């Protein structure tokens, strides 16, 4: 019975392609007009990288939510809950709790001490060149892995949403998404990117909210009956309990710990999230941004709980797994079940917009890091003027965009979950120890920073290369080979403590001392906001 009903579902899906494209086209047209208007007064480097620091805390908080809630969050978590039940929910908790690290330890202090990029803060009181280069390399690495995951995700999303299943067609769509993204970032800079993210966040949260209320209404606003229905459809009461996905073996349990560690410590060190804190005028607005984003992101993850179990109850895990797009199709299939082609079209367009907004945020971060940290500070040794720097940034946007398109086409159909996990693990291992040490540990030295950053980055990447996500399992990137010496899919549990240890070791073994005046300046600036807030106070 269920099988027959859903077979019709999936076939109908393809007929809504035109509608999906129409709604997506509308989104592109509207955002393009806004980006064009926003870009009119993009003149200085601060305009281009930091949107002239003109956004309010609530605007920036919404944009952060738009930047953070990627297609992986929306489609991936809803699907994970629909198929694996409770274990999917544990992802959302890690993704949310992580924001407390950003709120308490990072956001305001970073806003007060930096200018455009993460490296500004890390190299503030240490030796500029080595620290800036290391920070830029880890920024580019995180952005690249994240970008590749989003672009490859776009390909598999399309197979479901637009009914394009051949490789060439999907490649074409990846090119279109990439080209649009390049245009947004080139024309609009940070301001345009921010507006795209704000619009997308609102659409995503409203869309998910409507679906959540709809699902709850079906079950008389009784969460218990919804859960009961999910159990009935699945025929397995274990969907409400932890362990369906990660409880299988001792290794998988450890793997979940490792993932949890990477998620909770990685978020506050994601360069594209950090860069958003520079778009507001003061530390207080940075704090407000995080508070807004915590509420929006928290609300959204509560929605995904209902949507995930709703999809499990109304669509069924077997149908979801059998649909093109697999687990990721849970949310679109639920939308189709609830509101027919129109709601599906809306949700699909939102999913596209999500990818577009996230890749735009990543691209501008990577470009800013290259132009500001590598080109302006290292290659031209601070002699380049701001105009040249922005010019370099714009060219970098094109280069990164083209690389993302090619990478996306190449990685299309690959197991991409590991790319996101890798991005979080690299961010948590390479960036977070140095951020925390340089803000809070007076004695911290350049050698500590360099050891910690390269050690964290290197160990995370090497462990991933020798893990089951690359080889040795049926789901690996290279299923034929087996050089999986490291048993866990996520390196965080090893690489994060290692990076903290290296930062400490490098510092205590360093014979050189850092400039105490610079340390004093950084500490006073970070806590009082002197300099950074002047424009507002007077």
């Amino acid at each position, binding site marked *: 019975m269920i099988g027959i009903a859903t077979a019709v579902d999936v076939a109908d899906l393809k007929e809504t392609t035109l509608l999906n494209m129409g709604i997506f086209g509308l989104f592109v047209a509207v955002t393009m007009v806004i980006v064009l208007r926003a870009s009119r007064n993009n003149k200085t480097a*601060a305009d281009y990288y930091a949107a002239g*620091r003109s956004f309010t805390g609530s605007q920036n908080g919404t944009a952060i939510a738009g930047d953070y809630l990627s297609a992986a969050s929306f489609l991936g978590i809803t699907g994970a809950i629909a198929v694996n039940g*409770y274990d999917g*929910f*544990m992802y959302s*908790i*890690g993704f949310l*709790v992580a*924001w*407390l690290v950003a709120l*308490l*330890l990072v956001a305001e202090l970073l806003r007060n*001490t*930096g*200018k455009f990029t993460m490296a500004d803060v890390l190299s*503030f009181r240490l030796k*500029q060149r080595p620290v800036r280069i290391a920070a830029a390399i880890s920024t580019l690495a995180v952005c690249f892995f994240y970008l590749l995951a989003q672009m490859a995700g776009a390909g598999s999303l399309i197979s479901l949403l637009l009914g394009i299943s051949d490789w060439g067609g999907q490649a074409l769509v990846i090119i279109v998404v990439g080209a649009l993204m390049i245009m947004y970032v080139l024309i609009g800079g940070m301001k345009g990117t921010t507006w795209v993210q704000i619009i997308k966040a609102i659409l995503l949260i409203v869309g998910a909210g409507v679906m959540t209320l709809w699902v709850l209404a079906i079950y008389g606003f*009784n*969460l*218990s*009956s919804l*859960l*009961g229905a999910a*159990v009935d459809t699945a025929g397995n009461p274990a969907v409400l*309990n*932890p*362990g369906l996905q990660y*409880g299988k073996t001792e290794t998988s*349990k450890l793997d*979940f*710990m490792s993932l*949890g560690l990477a998620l*909770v410590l990685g978020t506050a060190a994601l360069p594209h999230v950090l860069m958003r804190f520079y778009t507001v*005028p003061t530390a*207080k607005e940075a704090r407000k941004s*995080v*508070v807004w984003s*915590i*509420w929006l992101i*928290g609300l959204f*993850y*509560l929605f995904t709980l209902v949507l995930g179990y709703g999809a499990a109850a109304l669509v069924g895990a077997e149908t979801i797994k059998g649909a093109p797009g697999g687990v990721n199709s849970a949310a679109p299939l639920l939308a189709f079940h609830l509101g027919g082609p129109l709601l599906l079209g809306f949700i699909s367009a939102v999913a596209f917009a999500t990818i577009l907004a996230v890749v735009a945020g990543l691209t501008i971060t990577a470009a800013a890091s290259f132009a500001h940290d590598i080109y302006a500070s290292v290659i031209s040794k601070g002699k380049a003027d701001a105009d040249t720097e922005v010019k370099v940034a714009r060219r970098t946007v094109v280069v990164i965009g083209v690389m993302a398109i090619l990478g996306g086409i190449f990685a299309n159909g690959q197991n991409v979950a590991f790319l996101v996990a890798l991005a979080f693990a690299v961010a948590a291992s390479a960036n977070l120890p140095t951020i925390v040490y340089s803000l809070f540990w007076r004695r911290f030295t350049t050698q500590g920073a360099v050891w910690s950053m390269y050690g964290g980055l290197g160990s995370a990447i090497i462990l991933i290369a020798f893990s089951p996500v690359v080889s040795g399992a049926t789901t690996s990137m290279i299923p034929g080979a087996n050089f999986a010496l490291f048993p866990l899919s996520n390196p965080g549990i090893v690489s994060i403590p290692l990076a903290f240890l290296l930062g400490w070791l490098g510092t205590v073994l360093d014979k050189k001392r850092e400039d*105490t*005046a610079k340390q*004093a*300046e950084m*500490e*006073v*600036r970070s*806590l*009082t*906001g*002197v*300099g*950074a*807030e*002047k*424009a507002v*106070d*007077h």
Partner: protein
Amino acid sequence: MGNDAQTPDAAASVDFEEVQSTERFQELRKRHRSFVFPMAVAFLLWYFAYVLLADYAVGFMSTKVWGNINVGLILGLLQFVSTFAITGWYVSYSNRRLDPIAAEIRHEIEGHEFDKNGNIVSGVAK
């Protein structure tokens, strides 16, 4: 490396080590750290306790409490509640205990009270 929002000469002549050694700055530092450090430790412990329970105490987490709502779901939702609560708590703490003192020190620095060249300007620039 500073912030482009500042006028270039404003911070250049400030003796930050002198500011750092003042009692008021030490107080601000203490207030900030005595809140954020224990709080960060607390929520990380609470989060990892939850993850460990979900990983190794599946039976306990699966205990039904009300209808189909089990302990695991309640603890998971409590993670949301604690995150929202800590957020609210931190904001009110900052507004009451951190922002006023930070603004005071900032105004004094910008009013050249800590000028390296020794030309102390008394009073706070407003």
